[in-house]
Every structure is written in C-alpha cells, then in structure tokens.
C-alpha cells in the first residue's frame, strides 16, 4: 500500500473514500454497515477515562493515523478535564453537600458540561473527517464509556467486490 495521501484532493481518491459520502445523512441512507472497530480503554493511568491511541489495523486504509490519533487524544483531554480533581471540583462538591445536593436540580455538573462539549466535538468530527471516509464514531457515553465504537460503512451501491470490508488491504484496487 502506498503511503497515505497528504492533500485533500488526494484523499478523495483513496480506495474506499467514496465521494458520495458528503454528510452523515447520505452515509446512513446509501451505505451499509460493514464492520465495527472498538477502541478500548487505556488503564495505565488508573481508573480515569482514557482511550488507547493505538491505531487499529482495520482502519488502515480508511483514515490517516494522525487524524485518528488527534481525535482520540482530544477526547482523552476532554475526559481528563472532566475528571480533574482540583479547586473547582472541591468547590462544586462542598457547595453541593451544603445544599444537600439539591443544587444539581438547578445547575449542571462540570462533568455533564464537558460531556456536552464532547458530544458536539464528536458530531463535528463525524461531519468533517469521518463521514467523508465512510466512518462513524459513536459517543463513548452510549457504550458505557468502555469503548469508542467506530462503524465502518460500505457504499450500498457498490458491488459485492467491495464487501470484503476494510480489513483487507487496499492493494490492487
């Protein structure tokens, strides 16, 4: 397999990058699910939420390593920010305790705010980076924060020859 193309125009000529996948709607309507890849948690720093940045081989021909790693690292940073134990979390905890935790009926916890940011980020990444490549990231919160699920799509219109899914190498296409 040749090295990953660098420019945007070159990327659209990747074997499985179908130009019809311009947005998520088209992805869902004209593509069929071929495979799912699961990015597991990285527990080396303890129980904080962090995902492995190891690039899965199934995505080898679908997306550049750097883009993928950027996404995962940004997600990890968001989660680290949510779980940071510092001044703000102490303040939130003490204030909540004093109000018998009724204050959470009115305001959002810091974690929930960061989760919303994460959800917007994933949506944006899906629209800009992953859907054009026939991929879709599922928010980890929908999988119990255990895995990042990446769905790999194949164009429904294409013939059975492409049903070999992304696990095969892209040579000879």
């Amino acid at each position, binding site marked *: 397999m040749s090295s990953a193309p660098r420019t945007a125009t070159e990327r659209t000529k990747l074997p499985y990058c179908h130009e019809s996948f311009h947005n998520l709607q088209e992805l*869902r309507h004209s593509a069929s699910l071929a495979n799912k890849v*699961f990015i597991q948690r990285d527990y080396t720093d*303890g129980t904080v939420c962090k995902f492995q940045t190891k690039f899965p081989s199934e995505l080898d021909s679908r997306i550049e390593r750097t883009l993928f790693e950027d996404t995962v690292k940004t997600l990890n940073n968001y989660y680290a920010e949510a*779980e940071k134990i510092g001044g703000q979390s102490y303040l939130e*905890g003490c204030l909540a305790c004093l109000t018998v935790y009724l204050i959470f009926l009115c305001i959002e916890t810091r*974690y929930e705010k960061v989760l919303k940011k994460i959800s917007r980020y994933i949506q944006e990444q899906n629209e800009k980076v992953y859907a054009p490549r026939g991929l879709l990231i599922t928010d980890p919160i929908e*999988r119990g924060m255990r*895995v990042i699920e990446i769905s790999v799509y194949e164009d429904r219109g294409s013939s059975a020859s492409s049903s070999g899914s992304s696990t095969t190498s892209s040579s000879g296409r």
Partner: protein
Amino acid sequence: MSAVMITRKATRKWEKLPGKNTFCCDGRVMMARQKGVFYLTLFLIVGTCSLFFAFECPYLAVHLSPAIPVFAVLLFVFVIAMLLRTSFSDPGVLPRALPEEANFIEMEIEAANGNVMAGQRPPPRIRNVQINNQIVKLKYCYTCKIFRPPRASHCSICDNCVDRFDHHCPWVGNCVGKRNYRYFYLFTLSLSLLTIYIFAFNIVHVVLRSVDSGFVNTLKETPGTVLEVLVCFFTIWSVVGLTGFHTYLISLNQTTNEDIKGSWSGKNRVQNPYSHKNIFKNCCEVLCGPTFPSVLDRRGVMLEDSSSPTPSDVSAASTHKGSNPVSQTTKSSAPLIPNEHTPDEAKPSIGAGTQKSTSSPKEEKPPSPTSPNAVAPAVIKESTH
C-alpha cells in the same frame, strides 16, 4: 429508511435494561429488587425521630434551648436526603456489551489464546494491565460480556457490573459503587451523628425531668424515650462502627470489596495502585471528586426502528440491546449469600466459580466473608487465577 412515527407511548430504555433492578418514576429511581430492609431503615429513622420530636423536643426547647430541635430537624433532613440519594441513584452500573462488541472481544480472546486442544480447558479470560507500575488483572464477565474495568465487580443480587463496586447494601436497598459511595458515606456519618445526638439528649431529658418528677414518673410521661434509647443504643454500635470502617477505607482509597478479598494487603500482593499515599488526597478524591454521570440513560426513548442495524446517534435503536444472554447467566445465587470471589483459588472444573462480587448481608464492621456458594447452577468456565 425513515424512522417510524411512534403513535403510542414511547418505550423508555429502562424498561428494557437487563439486570435485576426495579425502576420507579418512569426511570428516575433505580433500586435493587429486595426493598424490605430499606423500608425498615426508613421506618426506624423516621419513627425514632418522630418520637424524639414528639416527646423530647417540647421539653428541651423550653428548658434548654430551641436550637436543639432545630439542629435535630436539619440533621434529620440531611440523613433522609442522603439515604434517598444513595438508594435511588444509579451506583455506576456498566451496561452490557452489545452483540458486536461482545463478538469483537471474543475474537480478540480467541486470537490471544491460540489453539486449545480438544478436551483441555481454555485458559481463564484475564487481561493484564499496568497501573502505576503495578500489574492489575482484569477479569472477563460472562454475564455482561465485557472485561471489567479495574475496581469494577459484578453484583450477583442486582446482576450488573458496577464500577468501583463497594458492596451491596440491603439497608439502603441498592449497590454502593462509584456514583453513590460518597452519599452512602455521608448517610452513615450523619446517621451516626443523629443517633448520638438523640441518644445524648434523651439522657439529658430523662435526667432533667427526673430531678423534677422522679425517674419512674418521667418514663411514664414520655414512654417514647425508652424506645428511642433502645433503638439508638443498638444503632450506635453498628452505624458508628461502620462509619469508622468506611473512614478507614476512604483514607486508604480502598473499597469494601477489595478489603474483603485482601487485594492490597499481604506482602506478596501488589500495593494499592489507586492510593495517592496521602490520607488527605485520598479523602478528597473520594468525597470531593467529580460527580460522575450515569451511563445507563434510563430515560432515553427507545426508537422502534428495528429493521436497520445502522447505529444512530441515539444509542441502541433496536431492542436487542436489552436482550438477556440466556445461556450463561447465573441467576440462581442466593440473594443474601452471594459468592465469595477469591482470586487465589482455582475453582474446580465443575464451574462453581461465578463472577460475582461479595455483598455483605449486614453492614457491620468488617463482615466476615460468607462461605463460597456451593451451588453451581450454570456451567461457567471462568476459573480464577
């Protein structure tokens, strides 16, 4: 394929969740199935406090200070709030793996195990991770089809894997895990204070009144006092002891489950990799750490779109999410005597080992581990290392 318009009442996700929890208020409240002891707890607290407010408070407010009942009310409200918060919230249940994820993990396991000869038992499903320079083993949960995160454990009573599982408490009618541990601790702490407070002022009240009217007359005038003293006396021993035990655990950043199993004690075992080695930091992390959200999404609406398998932004579009893995679950472990999971023993080949954690039937000070359940209902090949 467009989404089907739902004309009848939408199904919420809690209705399809596996596990043995009961849900109330359309998914807002989540508890274990057996709630009898919880009602008893509530009754004892409310009953004793009512007697206190009825018999002692009028006298003490007049003869000593009106601040006494006021403080009692505040304490009572705090205790009830913490109890309800502990009992009704999601302890940190980990949702079960969807079929694709379960298959993915199975394929990884098979790839790692290589070829197993016919007739040989496959090796135990364990993943080693290094946390803070200690090797921690992650076990595979056959019910939930996941490798449990560190500190998570499967509760046999609720049939769920719970993150940072502490224990299943029948007194609050729920598991105690990552999300509700601090409320549980505050509940025991405030209950200790309340009990001591009521007990002390009962004594004061009896003494003061006896000076005027005599001891026997006092008891005749306020018969509730006797009952209160009795309840408080027995409660103090258990609850204060429990609070002390949990304070010790918090200062070491351990869970009851780990303490019972002896995960971090003994010279040959690893040291606790989660402890900050500083009592203050450990306490701060447990009590003042971030408030984790529930990952269960109990009140999310289930889409009725069952034909297309494509994932949508709202998770679990199809109802297969709630399907119970019928073949391998062990639902028959006795509710109050769950299996003691000892990591060092190799379970016999009849598959007596189930993946459940300990749940102490009483929350007394370090409860002695219950004997391993000899009943081995399902053939589960999990062998502990």
